[in-house]
């Protein structure tokens, strides 16, 4: 979807990367005006949006908080092999617990 068509409340369906290949935004991140501005800053015109995102619990979560939680988890997993599905699953479980705690 083009940046101009995006509306707050939508969700990213795929991870977004910076020019170095580092993750900028995770899939599942809720679209906000700030996020659109971030995408524009990086010159990313188009992203994939989730067809239907009905996860009420995390939709309520402040996107900035979620980003902070992710940033800390990214740090914790930074020396691990992130490409391994098991590590990804563990990351997901940790993220879920951290979000669930809130």
């Amino acid at each position, binding site marked *: 979807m083009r940046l101009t068509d995006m509306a707050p409340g939508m969700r990213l369906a795929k991870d977004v990367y910076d020019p170095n290949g580092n993750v900028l935004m995770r899939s599942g991140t809720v679209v906000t005006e700030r996020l659109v501005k971030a995408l524009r800053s990086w010159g990313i015109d188009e992203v994939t949006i989730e067809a239907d995102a009905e996860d009420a619990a995390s939709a309520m979560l402040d996107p900035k908080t979620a980003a902070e939680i992710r940033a800390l988890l990214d740090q914790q*997993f930074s020396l*691990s092999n992130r490409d*391994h599905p*098991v*590590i990804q*699953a*563990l990351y997901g479980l940790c993220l879920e*617990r951290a979000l669930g705690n809130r």
Partner: protein
Amino acid sequence: MMETKGDLLERLDELPSLPAVYHRVRQTLENPDGSLETVAAIIEADPALAARLLRVANSALYGLATKVDTVLRALTIIGAAETHNLVLATTLVSVFRDLPLGAVSMRSFWEHSIACGVAARVIARVGGRASPDRAYLAGLLHDIGRLPLYILEPHIMGAALQAHRDRQGHLFDLEQQFFGSSHAEIGAALLRGWAIPEVFCAAAAHHHRPALAEHPAPEIAVTHVADLVANSLRIGTSGARWTPILDDLAWRATGLETAQLRAVVETTIATTRDVTSAFLEH
């Protein structure tokens, strides 16, 4: 650097040794004429140990249906093989529980060890490849080699931790750099010195690099994965802050499916708190 390693190995006897009661229990268990009654009597001669052992036996670890209030009954329910592990775990934690460490507290250390033991037990049970009891003890003992590093070379260990904190590498690799050895190697040597059964020494020796084990054993693979789970969940710590690298072969050797991780994680979190308090609270 290699001097540090040799030096460390020679100085392992400066650490407290396992109490006589453990050796007496072990002799009794290995003696064909020995009985659980005798073992229970030996344990009860040390009331503090007996009380602690009962707390652990009644903790979520064993999931006993009813509360047991005598040592003999506890031992009868959990069985002779597990009795050895229970006595070893209890005496070991008691010996080291109150020693001072440095940048990590002994409490954090045991929290991590217990979490790893609990995770290993769950992984073994769910994956069905390793004995849950042995996996548990292997997990509990996997980082024991960190204790000599903290106690005998606090400054070098402090520097290694600082570098690790700055994300210069995994603590295991930094230990290699700073000591010319690692807690895995030192831990295995320590356990061998205590004449602990070989499977536990091997698990301690290879839990970071399971691929390098001469005789791959399911307990090694399970300990490797359990350590990774405990580190990701961050229940206590033996010093490591960042999630280590998963060895794919070891993962496969556990027999676990990715989808079963959730159950492992949840059981580990739910059980560890209770078991930790059974081991550590006064």
